[in-house]
């Protein structure tokens, strides 16, 4: 199992996600306003902002968990329209990790990992199990393979969730506040796995409040407020020279307490 094919340099310029003039409403409430964003293959992007700023909604639009009403999203050359085939094709290439883990409680850890490869990618069961064990090893819990999710700690569950997504060999990984539901002592084990994944060249979009992670791992940090991208920059300038007042205020609130 080689990881070499994922070793794309972060500076690579071929865009894997292109979002143009994206608008979304929940009823009459506009959650996303004219979002334009391009993500290069291998890029690691952290999306942050106050709650209700639309950051989760933005990344949930990328795998069509949320439907957008205006604008276009192209993922790996596939346009996300109402076409179910396109949506399924995109979802196969995009892994997602949720705040609440969302493991399947009626299946063992191993079954959680092999289900989608077997039923969606049509991988033979034995091969799927080998892949699953490889990724369980990578997230450092191979000994939990036969347990049920309910028997694991939150941190372990989230690592299983990451492994479950990786088993589909996605090109892009979306993380929706992956550490927000965890006890403090478990946050590090999950962030370590994510950092390792980033080092291997995975394209990642991470919604998180973990500014330490953002500073060390991200190529670019996107700050959102009221459904707008207010400012985006590399970590160095993002933290040291914020341009907009809103970002200054936000950083002031989250960094000095």
């Amino acid at each position: 199992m080689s990881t070499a094919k994922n070793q794309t340099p972060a500076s690579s310029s071929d865009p894997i996600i292109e979002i143009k003039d994206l608008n979304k409403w929940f009823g009459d409430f506009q959650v996303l306003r004219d979002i334009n964003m391009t993500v290069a293959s291998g890029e690691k992007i952290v999306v942050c902002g106050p709650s209700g700023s639309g950051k989760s909604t933005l990344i949930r639009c990328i795998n069509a968990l949320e439907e957008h009403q205006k604008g276009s999203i192209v993922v790996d050359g596939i346009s996300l329209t109402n076409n179910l085939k396109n949506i399924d094709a995109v979802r196969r290439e995009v892994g997602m990790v949720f705040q609440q883990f969302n493991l399947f409680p009626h299946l063992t850890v191993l079954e959680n990992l092999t289900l989608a490869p077997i039923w969606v990618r049509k991988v033979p069961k034995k091969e799927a199990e080998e892949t699953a064990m490889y990724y369980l090893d990578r997230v450092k819990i191979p000994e939990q393979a036969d347990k049920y999710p309910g028997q694991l700690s939150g941190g372990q569950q989230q690592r299983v969730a990451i492994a479950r997504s990786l088993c589909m060999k996605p090109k892009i990984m979306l993380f929706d506040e992956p550490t927000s539901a965890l006890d403090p002592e478990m946050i590090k084990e999950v962030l370590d796995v994510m950092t390792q994944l980033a080092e291997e060249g995975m394209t990642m979009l991470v919604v998180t409040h973990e500014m330490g992670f953002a500073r060390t791992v991200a190529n670019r940090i996107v700050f959102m407020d009221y459904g707008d991208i207010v400012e985006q920059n590399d970590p160095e300038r993002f933290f040291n020279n914020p341009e907009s007042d809103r970002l200054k205020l936000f950083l002031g609130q989250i960094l000095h307490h």
Partner: protein
Amino acid sequence: MTMPNTQHMSETSQRPPVTRVGVIGWLRANLFNTWYNSLLTILILWLFYKAIPPFVDWAILDAVWGNVESTVCRQTDGACWAFLYEKANLILFGLYPFEEQWRPTIAMIIFVSLVALSCHPKAWRKSLIFAWVIGVPAIAILMWGGILGLSYVPNTRWGGLPLTLLLSGLGLMFGFPIGVFLALGRRSNMPTIRTICITYIELIRGVPLITILFMASVMFPLFLPTGLTIDKLLRAQIGLIMFASAYLAEAVRGGLQSLPSGQYEAADSLGLSYWKKMRLIILPQALRISIPALVNSFISFFKDTSLVIIIGLFDLMGATKAALTDAAWRGFYKEAYLFTAIIYFVFCFFMSKYSQYLEQRLYTGTRR
């Protein structure tokens, strides 16, 4: 910071005081822990004292046993078990020809065995389908006959327990999958399918079962072209399936709604299609959650089949009533209904126990 390890803690933990354990401890904790509980305990013991000895007198000590004339029974206050000696065949098998009653007996044994086998999670393999494929025609051949040297018995003569098992068994076997599809349809994004399912469920649930049976029996034939007739038993069976499916759909819907949306989203994000998502992720969990409601419906439905008597089918309940119409044996209601009640109870009790076992078995630890 180190945590004390659990082994150390268990070594130092103490045993509970003696007055809290053993028989006396149990009595004190459960029956006499407060003054009103003590009062209730004494009251209930008094009721037992009042009820049990007379029942034993009636059912055993003063009872008439064996094959005797009904006139013997009329001379005593006790139970007349001679009634059952005389009428048990009629109650159990209705009007099925007496000398052929070994056939429904074997058919029932096959049916109950198949159901019991299907209840075992270990038997949930392909061979189970094979067992049913062989078992169902065997039951049909035994019941109808007409081949293999068996005399033909038209289904108008079927009755008693086999009929009850047939109507409720087939009703649930077909009603359940239809109910699952109705429940999924009711939660579908497609307005047409949703409307059809809601209309069906609400219509069927909105009328009493008697009405459905009556319509299936009396009104439905009026809509058929002349010359075409559908068997009365089949019509009743279809009516029962329709009734069961609407109720089971609502039980399943309860399970579907109690699943967190994260389960749907996780399945979607992995690229599972709608049907795979439902089959592999949503339904296994939703059905487990629905088990108490489903079994509740199963049990009521099993007993509700006794309403087929109004369209002239003699199921277990109907056959019991028929047995009491014999002039020589009129009036032995207690014996007849106790017998039938015990049969109903045994089946319902096992359904209930099995549901508890299944719930335990499918439980996989704390849910997220």
